[in-house]
């Protein structure tokens, strides 16, 4: 039996918004990053699913997923570098401490 595409899409949607929820509520920069990974991961699922179910003749979604993984990695690398830098500067990666720039 073929799993209906909608199931997969709903799964990815749920993962995506769990990521969103995490992004909104976590208080720690690394956790924020983890949440974004969840979101990007969900997006990749979407692309793969659409490719498999809608356009199997071309590899557009597939390759998009592939590149998505790469981009996610690059983003994470940069983000983590900056997080480390933040830590060096203020000795905390707590969101609350990032209050120098506001209003």
């Amino acid at each position: 039996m073929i799993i209906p595409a909608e199931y997969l899409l709903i799964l990815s949607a749920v993962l995506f918004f769990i990521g969103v929820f995490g992004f909104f509520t976590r208080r720690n920069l690394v956790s924020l990053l983890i949440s974004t990974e969840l979101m990007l991961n969900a997006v990749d699922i979407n692309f793969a699913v659409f490719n498999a179910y809608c356009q199997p003749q071309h590899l557009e979604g597939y390759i998009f997923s592939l590149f998505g993984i790469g981009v996610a990695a690059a983003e994470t690398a940069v983000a983590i570098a900056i997080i480390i830098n933040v830590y060096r500067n203020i000795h905390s990666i707590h969101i609350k401490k990032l209050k120098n720039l506001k209003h």
Partner: protein
Amino acid sequence: MDINMIIFAGLAIVMIVSALFAVTSSKIMRATTLLLFVLFGTAGLYFMLHYNFLGAVQITVYAGGIVVLFIFAILLIGKGSVDVTQTSIRRYLAGMATALTGMALTIYLILNTGFASDKFTASGVEMKELGMALMGTDKFNYILPFEAMSILLLACTVGAIMIARKK
């Protein structure tokens, strides 16, 4: 009950539960580990779609690369990284409400949109086909994004090193 369905259901439950815990757990290490479960689950999904290479990449890059990066970062940062549980109830509720609204809307739209999703064949992707697509210059070939990606990775490497190194 189809075996695929059972596997899918299992994966889905694992992924969702781990994802939920990953974004609520107060221990950062635990969260990272749970993220790893989600990533493995995703790889599982790819295998189900017979996208074996994609699944492999998922495991190597995501699980092997990114999560390790996380762990490094966490270790580097040390005890300051202990996650504090959600403090502001207002933001918590606002975040939850927004996310839930978004999710509801998305699921509603998914269910009400007829994707032309009837072309699924369990054939998978030939490696050669994939290679050609990545290296080709015609339509549905992706040499240009591939090259662009390389610049991106280079730039990010340079940038990340520049920022992270100590002088």
